Structure formats: C-alpha cells, structure tokens
C-alpha cells in the first residue's frame, strides 16, 4: 500500500517488512481512512521474522488517536505471537504534544520494541 499525504492524512507506505506514516492525521472520515490501513496490515504483516514501524506525525486529532490505539494493539498482538516488531516514534524537537503521545502509546507496548526519536527538521511527506 502506498498512499501520498493529503492535507489531512499522512503519507502511508506498507509492505511485508515495514509500515511508514509521515504527516498530519485528522481525516474527514476516520473509518474511511482507517479501514483500508488496518485491512492492509492484516493481510501483509507476517507472523514471524521482523517488522519495522516508522511513524513521524506532526498532528493528529482525538478521533485518530483511537485509530493509533488499534494500530498499536494490532502490532502488540503480532509481537506477542512471535514477530519481532520495532516501532520508531519520530517527533520534532520541542514538540511536547507528539512526545507525550509517543510516551503514552509506548507505555502500553510490552512485546514490541519502542523507541522515541527526536528529529530536527520536517521531512518528506509534510503536507503543511
């Protein structure tokens, strides 16, 4: 799955080794946004081996928080069942909101390896 960023949705790349999302997330319709992402993950993420999740979010709204909760729950279950999952939560320096959000999601992950990574400048996929 490859989906370019829009004003209100992030860049999304999903394959059997990696899931990457970069940008904004406050979709007009959260179900329309989340359903294809979750179903792609369910069909392509393997049961064994290793998998990397790279997230670099600049802003997400409260409706999207529920999506990310389900997203991490999916990977936590995969990791508990034997997939080596590494999650990289990238946040911009001084962005306390995204740092706190990362800390809160990371706290609940026991089987995934979770890392908070401070990044300097906006990278590609920035829809602003």
């Amino acid at each position, binding site marked *: 799955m490859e989906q370019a960023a829009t*004003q*209100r949705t992030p860049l999304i790349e999903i394959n059997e080794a990696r899931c990457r999302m970069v940008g904004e997330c*406050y979709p*007009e*319709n*959260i179900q329309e946004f989340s359903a294809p992402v979750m179903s792609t993950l369910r069909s392509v993420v393997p049961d064994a081996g290793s998998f990397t999740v790279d997230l670099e979010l*600049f*802003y997400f*709204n*409260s*409706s999207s*928080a*529920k999506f990310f*909760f389900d997203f991490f729950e999916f990977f936590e279950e995969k990791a508990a069942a034997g997939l080596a999952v590494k999650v990289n939560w990238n946040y911009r320096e*001084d*962005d*306390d*909101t995204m740092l*706190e959000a990362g800390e*809160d999601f990371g706290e609940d992950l026991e089987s995934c390896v979770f890392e908070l990574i401070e990044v300097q400048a906006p990278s590609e996929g920035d829809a*602003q």
Partner: protein
Amino acid sequence: MINDETLELHKFMQARRTLFCYSGPLSEDLLTQISNPVRQQLSESESDEGVAKRVFGVFVEQAQNIIRYANLRADTGEGVGTIAISVTEDDGFLIEAVNAIDSDKRTALESTLLELSMKDAKELRKMYKERLRSGPPEGSQGAGLGFIEMARRVQRFEFEIADTENGPVFVYRGYVS
C-alpha cells in the same frame, strides 16, 4: 449612514484582534478548506510552533464538535455554529465557539466540562489514556476524547450553557499561550 453595522463589525473584529471567525453551517469539507488559512494566520502571529499547534488542535476538535453535535442543522444537514480565534492582550490566543445543543445532553455536557475544568495536566493525560482504552461513551460519534484533548491543550477554559428561546446554547472560551 447606511453601513453603521458593517463599520462596527470591522471595528469590533479589529479591536478584538480576531485572526479568524466563521459563523454558519460547518462541514468536514469546509474544515479542510479553512485549515490552511487558519494555520497560516497562526504561524504569522506566533513564532512558537508548539503554541500554534495547540491552538489549531483546539480549533479542530471544537469545529468537529459543531459538525457532529450542533443541535441546529442547516437545510443540507451541516451543524451550525460560530468559531473564532483571536489574539489576547498578553499575546496569547482565545478560541471561542458557540453552538446550539440538545436539551437532553445539557446535564451530561455540563458535568463533563466541569469535571475537566478541575483536573490538572497530569490527570487529563491519564484520563485521555483511560478513555482511549475504554472506547467512546454512548452517543459519541468520535472517540469521546475531544473535550479531554481540548482541555489538555489550553491553559484554561470557560464555558456556559445559555438559555435562548430556541433552546440551550453552548458557549466556549479556551485560552492558549
């Protein structure tokens, strides 16, 4: 002079240092259209990106509250309300919103907001996380997190539910600096 009100409107907005104001039917489509101009205005008047982001966050959540829950609907179904962002005397921001609410929801809304107004940042963070785990309360079209999110992003907020001849109207003021 036929344009007294127009001139007054201009003076009023200027005196209040209003960056953005919209009053009328609000849809997700319209929110998309106005997001960029709002952000642009914010980044022009605020050098701290974190502050601008918090203001924008409150703006989005409250705009979506109007879209989903405003009791007054336009003929085409959109929720009708008013939402504005102004610069305060101390160069912070004031996010204001007004919309009609369902009489049945009045008590629940009042107690939710009263509870949120008494919580500190740490408690709000914990509450947000718990709500994320437990899922939305009944009657919520979102995750039920919107007002908690707003409370986390403001320094303080005020609210009132005013009685009008057309039913209760929710009045919100959130301060970010």
